[in-house]
C-alpha cells in the first residue's frame, strides 16, 4: 500500500511538472497549430521573473511579505511571459500562419535570441523593458473610443510609447540601483530559494512528501482547472474554440480572429511563464533551463492528441508514472520473484537514462498504432 502510494505520488509529481510545462504548448500548438520552439524560453522568462521577484521582496519595504513572494511571482510570471508572447505573435508569428516550417525556424531563432538576451542584459533593465512593453501594448487599448476615432490618435499612441519607454528606463534604473545583484549581466545560473513554509516535507498517511512537489501539483491543478473553465465557460473561450474548429466560418460570423489569435497565444505563453515558476523550485535558473523541457512538452502534446487538453493531462501523468515505475525499478519490488531474464531486463532499464530510452520507445510504438494520440480531435478541422 505504502509502496503504491509512494509510486503514485512520485508519478504524479513528475507528471505534474511535465503537465504544467506542456499546458501552454497544448494551447499554442494544439489549438493554434503553431510550432513554438521558443516555448521553453518563455518558461525560462517565468523562472527569471521568480528570481527577480524574490530579490525585490528582500528589499526592506517588502521584507514583511517575503514569504508570499512565490504566489506573487506566479501572477507576474504569467504577465511577463504573456506580454513577450503577445509581442512575438504580433511581430513574427502572425506573418507566418500556415507555413509551419518557417514558424519552426523563426521561433527557434527567437529562442536563441531570448537565451542570449538574459545572458548579456542586466536583469534590472530586462525587467524595465518588459514593463515598458506591457504599458506600450495595453495603454492604447484602454483609451476611450472617442480618442481612438479622432484624427490625433496617432499622437496619443506615439506619446504612450514615449511614456512607456520612460517608465521602463526609470524602473530599470530604480531596480538596478536598489538590488545590486540585478544590475550586472551574468551568464551564471541563479538560484530561487523557496520560502521557509515551502521547505521540508509533510506526512500524509504514513509517507512523507516534499512540500515543493505538493506546491507544483497545486499550481498545475489550478492552471488546468482555470484554463478548462476559461475555454468552456467564457465568451472568449467559446470564440477560441470556434476559431480552432473553423477559422473562415468564425471570421464570417464576426469573430475577430486576429484578436482571438493574440489572446490564445498570450494565454499559452503566460502558462509557460507559470511553468517557469514551478521549474525554478526544482533546479537552478539559467538561460538553458527551458530548452531542457521542450522535447518533453512536444512529446506530451503529441501523445495526448493535438488539440485536446484532456489528452495532455492523461499523457503527462502516464509518462510520469511510467518514468517512476521503470526508472526506480519498482516492478521488482511489486513482484520480487519474477523469472531471471525478465528481472535482468527490468534492472537494465532501471536507471534514469535507460528509463528515458524505454519511454521514448514505448511512445513511438504507441504512435504507430494510434498516430493521432490518446484522444484524437474529432470534427471538421480533421477533415480538411
Amino acid at each position: 500500500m505504502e509502496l503504491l502510494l509512494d509510486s503514485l505520488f512520485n508519478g504524479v509529481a513528475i507528471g505534474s511538472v511535465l503537465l504544467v510545462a506542456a499546458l501552454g504548448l497544448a494551447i499554442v500548438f494544439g489549438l493554434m497549430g503553431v510550432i513554438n520552439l521558443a516555448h521553453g524560453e518563455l518558461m525560462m522568462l517565468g523562472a527569471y521573473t521568480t528570481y527577480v521577484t524574490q530579490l525585490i521582496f528582500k528589499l526592506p519595504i517588502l521584507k514583511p511579505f517575503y514569504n508570499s513572494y512565490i504566489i506573487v511571482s506566479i501572477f507576474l510570471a504569467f504577465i511577463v511571459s504573456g506580454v513577450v508572447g503577445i509581442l512575438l505573435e504580433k511581430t513574427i508569428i502572425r506573418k507566418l500562419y500556415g507555413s509551419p516550417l518557417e514558424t519552426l525556424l523563426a521561433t527557434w531563432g527567437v529562442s536563441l535570441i531570448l537565451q542570449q538576451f538574459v545572458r548579456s542584459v542586466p536583469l534590472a533593465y530586462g525587467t524595465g523593458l518588459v514593463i515598458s512593453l506591457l504599458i506600450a501594448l495595453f495603454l492604447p487599448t484602454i483609451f476611450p473610443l472617442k480618442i481612438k476615432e479622432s484624427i490625433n490618435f496617432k499622437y496619443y499612441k506615439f506619446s504612450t510609447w514615449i511614456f512607456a519607454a520612460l517608465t521602463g528606463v526609470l524602473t530599470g534604473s530604480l531596480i538596478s540601483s536598489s538590488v545590486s545583484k540585478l544590475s550586472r549581466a551574468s551568464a551564471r545560473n541563479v538560484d530561487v530559494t523557496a520560502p521557509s513554509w515551502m521547505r521540508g516535507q509533510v506526512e500524509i498517511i504514513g509517507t512523507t512528501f516534499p512540500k515543493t512537489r505538493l506546491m507544483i501539483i497545486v499550481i498545475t491543478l489550478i492552471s488546468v482547472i482555470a484554463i478548462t473553465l476559461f475555454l468552456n465557460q467564457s465568451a472568449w473561450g467559446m470564440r477560441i474554440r470556434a476559431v480552432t474548429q473553423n477559422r473562415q466560418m468564425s471570421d464570417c460570423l464576426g469573430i475577430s480572429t486576429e484578436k482571438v489569435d493574440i489572446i490564445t497565444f498570450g494565454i499559452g505563453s503566460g502558462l509557460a511563464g507559470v511553468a517557469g515558476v514551478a521549474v525554478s523550485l526544482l533546479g537552478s535558473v539559467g538561460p538553458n533551463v527551458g530548452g531542457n523541457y521542450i522535447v518533453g512538452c512536444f512529446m506530451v502534446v503529441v501523445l495526448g492528441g493535438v488539440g485536446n487538453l484532456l489528452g495532455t493531462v492523461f499523457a503527462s501523468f502516464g509518462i510520469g508514472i511510467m518514468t517512476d515505475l521503470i526508472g526506480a525499478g519498482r516492478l521488482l519490488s511489486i513482484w520480487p520473484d519474477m523469472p531471471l531474464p525478465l528481472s535482468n531486463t527490468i534492472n537494465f532499464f532501471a536507471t534514469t537514462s535507460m528509463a528515458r530510452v524505454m519511454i521514448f520507445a514505448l511512445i513511438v510504438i504507441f504512435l504507430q498504432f494510434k498516430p493521432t494520440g490518446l484522444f484524437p480531435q474529432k470534427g471538421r478541422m480533421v477533415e480538411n
Partner: protein
Amino acid sequence: MRISRRILAGLATASLAVTATSCGGGGTSGSFDDTVTVGILHSLSGTMAISESTLVDTEKMAIEEINAAGGVKVGGKSYKIEYIVEDGASDWPTFAEKSKKLIDQDGVPVVFGGWTSASRKAMLPVYESKDAFLYYPIQYEAQECSNNIFYTGATPNQQSEPATDFMYKRSPAAGGDFFLVGSDYVFPRTSNTITKAQVKQLGGNVVGEDYLPLGNTEVAPIISKIKKALPEGGIIINTLNGDQNVAFFKQIQDAGITPSSGYYVMNYSIAEEEISTIGPEFLEGHYGAWNYMMSIDTPASKKFAKSFKKRWGADRVVADPQESAYNMVYLWKQAVEDAGTFDDNAVRKALVGQKFDAPQGPVEVMPNHHLSQTVRIGEINAEGGFTILEETGVVLPQAWNQKHPSSKGFACDWTDPSKGEKYKL
C-alpha cells in the same frame, strides 16, 4: 538583396572587430628582446563558458605575472609572453578546429586549453598528428597518457580514492553503504567503476548507482532509489555536473536526505565557485575532495587568492581548476628556460622533473606527464568554503588506474622510449 548584402558586410566587419579585440597581448611595460605567442583555448560561449572563462582569467593573470617579472629567459634573451585567446564554444569539434588554427596558422609553441573530457578527446588526435603540445588543467578520469598532452589536474587516485577511503573509514557515516550518483558521461562512469572496485576491496557495499542524462533535472526517481537502498542513511558519492547539482541538492534536502538524518554526500565536482551558485545552505555538512582549496592557510595560497581578487574583482573566488591552470603556465615557463628553446621536443624532455611551489604546496612533473599533488578532504561550511579535515602527503599520479579492471598493472613513462604510453608493470 542590397540590404542583405549590407547586413552581411556589417556582420563581417563586426566579427573582424571581435577577432581583433580578442587577439590582445599581455602587459605593456618593461623592455624585452623579443616576444613569444602562446595559445589559450577554452569555451567563452555556450554552456561551459561559465566554468572555462575562469581558467582564461587565471592563465592571463599567470602570464601577466611572468611578464612583470621579466618574461621568459631563453638563451640570454628575455621574451615577453603574448597570447591568442580562441573560443572553443562548448562544442568539441570546434576545439579540434581551433587547435589546428593555433598550431598551423599562428605557430604557437604551446596551447593551454580544454575542460571537459570530450573536448580533450577531440583535440588529442590533432596534437598527436602535428606533434604539438597541449596543457590540460582539469581533474579527470585518467585512463589516458599522451606524449602530446601534459595533465595538471588530479587523476582518480589523487582525488576519488583518498575520498572514498575517508568516507568509508573516518567520516560520520563510516562503514555505511554507498550509493553512486553521476551525470551520464565518461568521467562519472569511469570514476564510479574505480570507486566500486575500491569499496569492494575495503569490504563495503555499493547498494546502487544511477546516472542523470546531461540537461535533465528530474531527480525524483533517484531519490526514491536512494531512500529504498539506504533507508537508515549512508554514503552518497556524487559526480553530477554543473547545474544538475542544484536540482539534486535542493530536492534531496526537501526529501529529508541530509547530514542530520545520516546521509553524507562526497562531491568530486563541487568547488568554491559551485558552492556559491548552489547555495551553502544546501551543501553544509557534505564533503568535497580537491588538491587546492581556497581555505588553505599558507602564504602561497593566500597570495594566489589575493592577486586573483585584485586582478578580477573582490567577489571572485579561486578553486582547484584555476590553481591547476596557474601551475601549468609556470611549469611551461620553467621547462622552456631549462630547455633553452621553445622547441616542443626539448621542452617535453625538460618538463619531466620540474618542481614548482604551487598554491597547494610543492608539485612535481612525473614521467607520465601528470603532476604529483597533495589531496585534501574538506567539509563544506556555512560561509561557502571548505573546512579542511585531512591532508595527505604528496600522492603520485596514476595515468592508468590500478583499481580499474581494464588498466590494472599498467603504467606510463615517456622518459623511457621502450615503455611509452602503456607498459606492464
